[in-house]
């Protein structure tokens, strides 16, 4: 038995022990904690139990996902996939469907989701620090060309597939009036445009990849978020027209105002946060990691209060610091990188736990059709865009893989769309379909991206082999 096998067996053993400990704790909890668990939350039994169990779930997801990431890594799989799969296994979707209790209950998961904004803030701070003005200045036109081609092709391509194939396959969506069907098809296209900045950053960090594909993919993914906010606002403005109801979707002016505030407010606030963080960091002698976590909380908290996008705020804050004070901000970015591993573990495991297994099981053929057409169109749109934008020929065949993973942004868009359309009878099926497709992309995307980075020769192992 070699060292690697022994290590894998030890990690599997610890994972088994951990799962046993959590199941045992859940089994004896009703007897030992009793009513004490519920009275702290003002008598609300569900909230009390969730508050009681959330810390154990957090520890379980953190350690379990890290262990599974380490176990799958020697088999060539990205660790992120391990984190996501552990979330699926531990979450309230899979085991209850098999008649077993879930280690992480749905209401505990809801509480853990509140940590997403903190995780996104920290991930985006690093991402912002990676984008350099000099690179953007030279690449802005090319990124715009790449995105215009990619977004256009996916939006309309998926729209056509959804209109003629996907919607007719779902009984509750097959009989919709034409304007509503066209609108929903374009919404499906918009959701397929979205990809995950968090997974892109995590995959670049995990593989240690460096090169033009990483830089271009990161800058394009981040810029695409701005495009998505604008496109979503336009889509939502058409809800009353598409569904024939004047009281849906809010006023056009209101939506435009909200979008402008979302974009301009986030960018402006991000600059302020970046400058404030820099000056505070220069005064700090020790424990800069604690300061960074506090800043992450502050960004998450303030963005929520002001209806801003934490991702954009933190991204601009990181960008501001890295580009105005490149040398002096190095210490801070190094500290954030150390903190990122636990953040990734919890963030991706929580995302995995949130995957609606029932939706995937019920709608997998339709979801697979949507995923398949998205993959083809991402490949076609990105490769064509890369050619038009005259990107480095070495990355043109592979850069599309970086746009395949989906996670938080796509889920947020799906939820936003479902909320805007209201309580019409087909909305649960529509939301389930979108979430099922996102779930498949969530697990498949990192695998494709790792493969793409290796083929483009940007990972250390590929560079060494080359």
């Amino acid at each position, binding site marked *: 038995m070699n060292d690697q096998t022994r*290590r894998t067996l*030890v*990690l599997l053993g*610890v994972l088994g*022990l*951990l799962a046993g*400990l959590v199941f045992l*704790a*859940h089994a*004896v*909890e009703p*007897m*030992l*904690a*009793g*009513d*004490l*668990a519920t*009275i*702290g*939350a*003002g008598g609300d039994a569900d*909230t009390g139990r969730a*508050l*009681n*169990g*959330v*810390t*154990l*779930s*957090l*520890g*379980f997801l*953190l*350690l379990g996902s*890290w262990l599974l990431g380490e176990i799958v890594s020697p088999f060539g799989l990205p660790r992120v996939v391990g984190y996501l799969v552990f979330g699926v296994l531990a979450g309230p979707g899979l085991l209850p469907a098999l008649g077993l209790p879930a280690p992480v209950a749905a209401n505990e998961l809801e*509480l853990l989701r*509140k940590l997403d904004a903190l995780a996104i803030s920290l991930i985006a701070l690093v991402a912002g620090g990676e984008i350099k003005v000099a690179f953007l200045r030279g690449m802005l036109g090319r990124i715009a060309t790449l995105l215009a081609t990619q977004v256009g092709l996916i939006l309309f391509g998926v729209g056509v597939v959804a209109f003629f194939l996907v919607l007719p396959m779902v009984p509750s969506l097959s009989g919709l009036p034409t304007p509503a069907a066209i609108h929903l098809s374009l919404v499906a296209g918009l959701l397929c445009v979205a990809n995950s900045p968090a997974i892109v950053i995590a995959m670049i960090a995990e593989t240690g990849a460096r090169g033009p594909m990483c830089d271009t993919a990161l800058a394009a993914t981040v810029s695409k978020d701005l495009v998505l906010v604008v496109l979503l606002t336009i889509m939502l403005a058409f809800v009353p027209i598409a569904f024939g109801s004047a009281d849906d979707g809010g006023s056009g002016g209101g939506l435009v105002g909200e979008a402008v505030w979302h974009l301009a407010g986030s960018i402006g606030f991000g600059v302020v946060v970046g400058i404030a963080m820099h000056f*505070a960091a220069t*005064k*700090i*002698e*020790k*424990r800069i990691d*604690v*300061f960074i976590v*506090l*800043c992450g909380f*502050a960004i998450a*908290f*303030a963005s929520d*209060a*002001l209806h801003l996008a934490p991702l954009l705020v933190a991204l601009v804050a990181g960008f501001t610091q890295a580009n105005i004070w490149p040398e002096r901000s190095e210490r801070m970015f190094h500290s954030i*990188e*150390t*903190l*990122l*591993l*636990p953040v990734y*573990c919890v963030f991706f495991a929580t995302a995995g736990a949130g995957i609606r297994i029932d939706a995937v099981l019920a709608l997998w053929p339709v979801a697979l059709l949507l995923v398949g057409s998205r993959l083809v169109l991402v490949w076609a749109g990105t490769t064509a865009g890369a050619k038009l934008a005259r990107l480095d020929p070495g990355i043109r065949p592979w850069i599309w893989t970086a746009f395949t993973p989906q996670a938080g942004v796509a889920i947020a868009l799906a939820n936003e769309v479902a909320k805007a359309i209201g309580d019409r009878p087909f909305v649960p099926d529509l939301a389930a379909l979108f979430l099922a497709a996102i779930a498949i992309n969530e697990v498949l995307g990192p695998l494709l991206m790792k493969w793409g980075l290796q083929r483009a020769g940007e990972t250390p192992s590929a560079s060494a082999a080359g």
Partner: protein
Amino acid sequence: MTTPLLLAAAAEGATRVLAVFVGIAVVGAAATFATTRLYARLQRQRWVAAFTAGGWFATIAGVLIGPRVLAAVEGDALLALRPILGIALAWIGLIVGLQLRRTLVAAIPPNLVRWLVRDSAVAGGVGVIVAACWWWTGHADQPISIVGPAAMVIVVAFLGWAPETRTLRADLTPGTVAPAQQVQAGGGLGAILAIAAVGLAMPVLQAAGDGSATRGAVIAALEPVLAIGTALLLGLGARLLLRRTAGRESEALVITLALVFLSAGIANELGFSPLVSGMLAGAVIANLRDPHLRDLERSLQSAEPGMAVLMLLSCGSLAAEAHAGEAIVLGLAIAGLRLVLKPIVARTALRRAFPDLEERDPLTLGPARLPMIAIAIAVGPVLATGDGSAATVLAGVMIALLLGAIAPALAGRRRASSDTPSPGVAA
């Protein structure tokens, strides 16, 4: 309703956002200032050090952001404090437990043990009387499962003392180094004693509050066994994993955080204090004698000031539910009785061990100060029951801690000035 709350009611969203921002700014500015060189310089001043050690600044910031003033932390955010504080408690428990290394325990001088036993008997006895008076004056009709843990906090607030001596005697002489070390060591041991008392008392109180005697007995017997079993499993698991990380900082951080979260989570789930489960896990880690675990110990201990600040900030907000008058009376009683009793016991113990020590040395006033662990213990019943009487006891302990931090220093200063001969007499 305070002025900011009235404004919030009038202008709703905008004022609420402003309050949140002021709250963030208060905490952010305080946290940043605490890491600056200027603050480090100010800390050399005896009075600033006394205020800091007593947690005055963090407590005031906590009250400012709490529901009664800025209301930046209220409602859902206040509920979210429950798991966060559980984590902080487990972390503090781990730090305390790390002191329980066999070699250190074996090196405890017998006279220190005698001092602690005598001090705990006298102060604990007075604590029981104070707790009984508190129960009798307005809490006798509350169920034991609610009022029992709060009364236990009052008793525990009389045990142990703060392990800090610098603010009492900045200028240690060869004759005072050893007594100062004994005061510090006694503070550390007192914390262990207080947590152990909670660990033993909580299952009994829970059992007493339970309707069924059999079920109560099972709980009382099972909880310590489960707590020890979990601690062993977590300690051994952490060692096994740390040996496989090859010193990588980010992986060691995952294991450290998981250890703390699991310690706190299992304690929450099984109904015992995260302080106890943390302390037991810390004791296991300290006694495994593995070089890989030294890094874990260092990273756990390095977060001690941060955890203390988090605890005090949160307590400032949690104490908003307290009955102010009752809390002040309780705080004054705890601080006053400690100031009277503890120095008498300390003087006897220290003079016996160190005959050269002056009878009225300021070091003998050290044990009058409440240890920070008293706050951590007082938070437990507030989190577990969410009851106003538990919040009142928490506020009382906080007031006693704040007063205790400066009162001995003040008494020591007066004593020093009264001992110094006037220039005329000297001439």
